[in-house]
């Protein structure tokens, strides 16, 4: 995402935008200070939680449960001591006279621990467990990543998620834009009824019709196929509504002129109206990609065979009845984030400037 900083100033350029936010451009005004404070705070607020997630994903299961949490993933230093087969954990021991020494622990019995000086393996002493602090070093728990990636079929899940997201988004864009075109450009009998259905279902969340939709999907024999995840969400009322509102602003003269030139209705749709609606389509595309990539409840009910699992089901499989294996969940969450972040880093300029250059109306 580093190349974003190099965004060239837009053609209208500095002067015009400088005036937009308020009286700016001649020296520092309090609004400039406010702007930068706000931005700095905003960036911290947006990114730090995610950074925290990534840092946490490298901690061991025990490290995750610590309070106060450590900033970096740490592990206790182990030392080889002569006379012991296994490496021993290293502690910093504070003695009664205030001296501090590094000692390795042989074993702990109750509230006393038996320590040995790594330099001098003959010397063994008993120390109260309150007087010792583990010595730790920066250590990354890569096993949080490698273990699940070995045991679970990550590539299959990733593949499924990519197929679902791509196919569903393309179908959504196609059929929604067609419907929006039909509803925006033509006057026809039944249009109001259709609009009423679209508007009426705008607000209905799929969560509340989960079971009836599942029944329909079973009757169509789509259970345990990726189609069961792709198709049902495609006819989004939100998408139709959004695109239609946008298409309403397209000048009718353009369409009339095209008809004069003997263009077919389909040509008008894809050669004139679609290109002009690109900003709204971009918005819908983001919506659709985010929604499909992150969809969890619906795939969970229609997919119960691991070869069709999506990433979200796969990574949530670490949540058991009585025990959530957080170290795996976190690591897999980060893994699921990577593709979206990479795609966004590449496309964000297109997405954001795409919307901005034409303006959403």
């Amino acid at each position, binding site marked *: 995402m580093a190349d974003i900083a190099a965004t060239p100033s837009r053609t209208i350029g500095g002067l015009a935008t400088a005036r937009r936010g308020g009286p700016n451009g001649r020296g520092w005004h309090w609004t400039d200070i406010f702007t930068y404070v706000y931005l700095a705070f905003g960036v911290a607020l947006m990114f730090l939680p995610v950074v925290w997630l990534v840092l946490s994903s490298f901690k061991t299961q*025990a490290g995750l449960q610590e309070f106060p949490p450590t900033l970096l993933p740490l592990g206790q230093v182990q030392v080889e001591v002569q006379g012991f087969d296994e490496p021993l954990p290293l502690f910093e021991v504070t003695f009664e006279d205030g001296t501090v020494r590094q000692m390795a622990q042989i074993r702990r019995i*109750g509230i006393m621990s038996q320590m040995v000086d790594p330099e001098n393996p003959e010397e063994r002493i008993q120390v109260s467990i309150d007087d010792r602090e583990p010595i730790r070093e920066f250590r990354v728990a890569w096993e949080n990543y490698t273990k699940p990636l070995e045991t679970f079929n990550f590539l299959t899940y990733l593949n499924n998620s*990519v197929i679902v997201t791509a196919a569903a988004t393309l179908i959504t864009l196609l059929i929604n834009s067609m419907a929006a075109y039909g509803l925006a450009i033509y006057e026809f009998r039944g249009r109001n009824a259709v609009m009423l259905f679209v508007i009426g279902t705008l607000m209905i969340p799929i969560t509340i019709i989960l079971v009836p939709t599942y029944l329909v999907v079973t009757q169509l024999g789509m259970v*345990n196929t990726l189609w069961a995840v792709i198709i049902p969400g495609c006819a989004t009322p939100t998408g139709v509504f959004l695109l239609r509102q946008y298409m309403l602003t397209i000048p009718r003269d353009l369409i009339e002129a095209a008809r004069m030139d003997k263009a077919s209705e389909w040509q008008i749709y894809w050669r004139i109206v679609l290109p002009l609606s690109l900003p709204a389509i971009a918005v819908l595309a983001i919506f659709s990609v985010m929604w499909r990539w992150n969809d969890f409840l619906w795939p969970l*009910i229609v997919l*119960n065979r*691991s070869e069709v699992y999506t990433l979200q089901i796969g990574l949530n499989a670490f949540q*058991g*009845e009585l*025990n959530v294996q957080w170290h795996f969940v976190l690591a897999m969450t980060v893994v699921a984030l990577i593709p979206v972040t990479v795609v966004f880093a590449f496309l964000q300029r297109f997405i954001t400037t795409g919307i901005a250059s034409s303006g959403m109306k």
Partner: protein
Amino acid sequence: MTKTLTRTLAVSAAGFALMAGSAMAQTELRMTWYNDGNEGEVMRDLLDTFEEQNPDITVVLDTVPYKAILESLPVQLAAGEGPDLARVTDLGGLAQYYLDLTPYISDPEYWENNFGPFLEWKREPGNDSAITGFMTQLTVTGPYVNKTLFEQAGVEMPGEGATWDDWAEASSQVAEATGVPYPMAWDRSGHRVAGPAISMGAQMFTEDGEPALVDEGLKMMAQKLHDWHQDGTMPKELWGSVSGNQYLGANEDFANANVVLYMSGSWQIPQFAETIGDAFDWWAVPAPCGPAACTGMPGGAALVALKDTEHPEEVGTLMDYLSSEEVLSEFYARTLFIPGHLGLAESGVDFETDDPRAKHALSTFAAAVPSISPIAFDLQGYVNNRVMFNALISRLGEAIVGELTLEEAYERMEQDVAQQIAERERDG
């Protein structure tokens, strides 16, 4: 990007075709599974051996989030879209979908002898012969204490026959002396409360077997729990934070030595061995007493065969293999689960752990099985037990945060149970 997409689509289409092809060549069994720890890995290893011995059967382990077992699986089963086998916890509630394995297994008597008491949990009411599966783990609820804190505080641990009040008192002294924020934490779960409530004298059922959640024994326990939350003996974060019947555990708090006594159950052992290890002595203690008994609740998860299967013969073969003493013994040993197999319970399982605390905990919980109250066994085997547990925990939770008084909560509990059972009875 579009090119790769096309390729991906083509590749996966080919993949599906291949899978369809291989499915025809041999029998494929689907087992829906969830994981609390390493049991999926162990099961996979055992299934690999099985596949070697039976080259014509492949078993696919479909690991899902536990949420799917609880919420999606019942709907899938109702729609006839279920797998061949599944690991479930709502043993009685789903019993109508289980396959009776009797005709397909080689030695039903072996099952009766070794899984006898637990088979009943997995039968529909009125059926007393069906063999539908075995327990992948038997669980027993009970408290763990941080013994190291007791030693640091110089407080004697209450011994055999100590009551809940004794433990609350002792834990409070320890917390006071050592500066630990909370003396006691309980899992937020109706199942966990049921054992102590039965110890206080709760009967759970009327004489003719109808559910009767609220009685004097239950009220006694509920009152104590309510008071412990108000006086700071128990942290409000567990019972007071989420709504409804959601489960919450205090694993982190216990592992960080923020609580002295943690009421949970035997399934925590592998996790504690991993996360706490040697940091302090986490010690399982026998279930504390009330006036009526000293009992925890039994429970657990079972692997069951499902009616939807098209290959009952192969399912039978698989179940024969998995339930054999040798295989199960390896499974329990590697997962640190309490065996749900009477023969193994008697002879003992050689658990694969060096942790003396884990060994002690395993033997403590295994030893607690015989002393479990018959009411607790009946409750565990009751079809609608989760309705009772859920009503208990959700309303008690609302009372603890002050949305309801305890009296109102009791009334709501009874209404909730009555309403849900009435809804189920409409099915006729």
